């Protein structure tokens, strides 16, 4: 006899589940502070019988999530915010280079076999090393970006060491004459290296220091 009411309960439960799924896109700290309250407002705005989030509200919620994730964290200096974005760009550039290497491996092999058959072995070893090594490098970029974003002081020194290694490997590559036989490779490496240089400078600026020298690390 309570059927209509039961239906109503199911409707609102499924609507609430839909909204919670959308709110899952928001940063954790924001959800802890605001989720229940936003849900109350969303449910209050929904007309009776609505079973799923409206398209308009869904787009607005997703836009809010993107806006929050692109905005600096509370108390984060602009320099750190910029450095972390540069590091994301660095990881993306490495990924693009990796995809290019994998996609062109076949034609590179054919060209080398044709022009310099004796060098084919060493070139293909180089390609294979890149295929294994670059995902690791991309991972390092991302982990360090994550830690630097959260104010971990150790990550600053981790990134500085990573930058030194990158610089050294570039100097070695230049010494081996990469610039002559693989100019595109060197240009790509130089572009990524400039991103790393800019990020290193930014995180060691005085404006960034106060973010990394707080008493307690910034969690969440």
């Amino acid at each position, binding site marked *: 006899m309570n059927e209509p009411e039961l239906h109503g309960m199911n409707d609102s439960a499924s609507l609430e589940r839909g909204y919670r799924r959308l709110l899952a896109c928001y940063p954790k700290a*924001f959800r802890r*502070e*605001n989720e*229940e*309250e*936003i*849900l*109350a*407002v*969303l*449910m*209050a*705005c929904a007309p009776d019988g609505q079973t799923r989030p409206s398209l*308009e*509200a869904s787009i*607005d*919620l*997703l*836009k*809010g*999530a993107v*806006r*929050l994730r692109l*905005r600096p964290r*509370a108390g984060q200096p602009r320099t750190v915010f910029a450095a972390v974005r540069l590091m994301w760009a660095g990881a993306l550039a490495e990924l693009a280079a990796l995809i290019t290497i994998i996609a062109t491996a076949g034609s590179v092999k054919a060209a080398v076999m044709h022009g310099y058959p004796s060098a084919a072995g060493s070139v293909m070893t180089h390609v294979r090393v890149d295929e294994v090594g670059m995902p690791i490098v991309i991972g390092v970029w991302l982990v360090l970006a994550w830690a630097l974003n959260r104010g971990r002081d150790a990550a600053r020194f981790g990134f500085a060491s990573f930058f030194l290694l990158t610089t050294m490997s570039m100097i070695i590559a230049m010494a081996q004459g990469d610039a002559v036989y693989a100019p595109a490779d060197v240009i790509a490496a130089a572009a990524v290296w400039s991103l790393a240089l800019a990020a290193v400078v930014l995180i060691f600026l005085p404006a960034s220091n106060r973010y990394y020298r707080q008493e307690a690390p910034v969690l969440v």
Partner: protein
Amino acid sequence: MQEATFLILTALAAGTQHGYGIISDVSEISGGRVKLLAGTLYTALDRLRADGLIGVDREEIVDNRLRRYYRLTPAGEQRLAEEAARLQAHATAALRRLKVNLNLNLAGGVA
């Protein structure tokens, strides 16, 4: 300052309000033109709180749901007053020039 932010601060200028109250008030202030959605409202409230322009006045549980009341801080009042004065100065300038134009046109029409 974005229009939504300006209207949210204006809604709070009259007294404390909760989220749903702000949405209805903003709709009223703007003559039904601006309908705030939850995502826009809460990203704006989050930013305004972080900037110290608004604060949480109190929390209540109504029908098992959290209801949080917000209020304007002194810094928020000052910021809203500055922004309102700026918009008013622009609007006054625009209206004055339109009036001059209108008068010229009228004068031209008569002559």
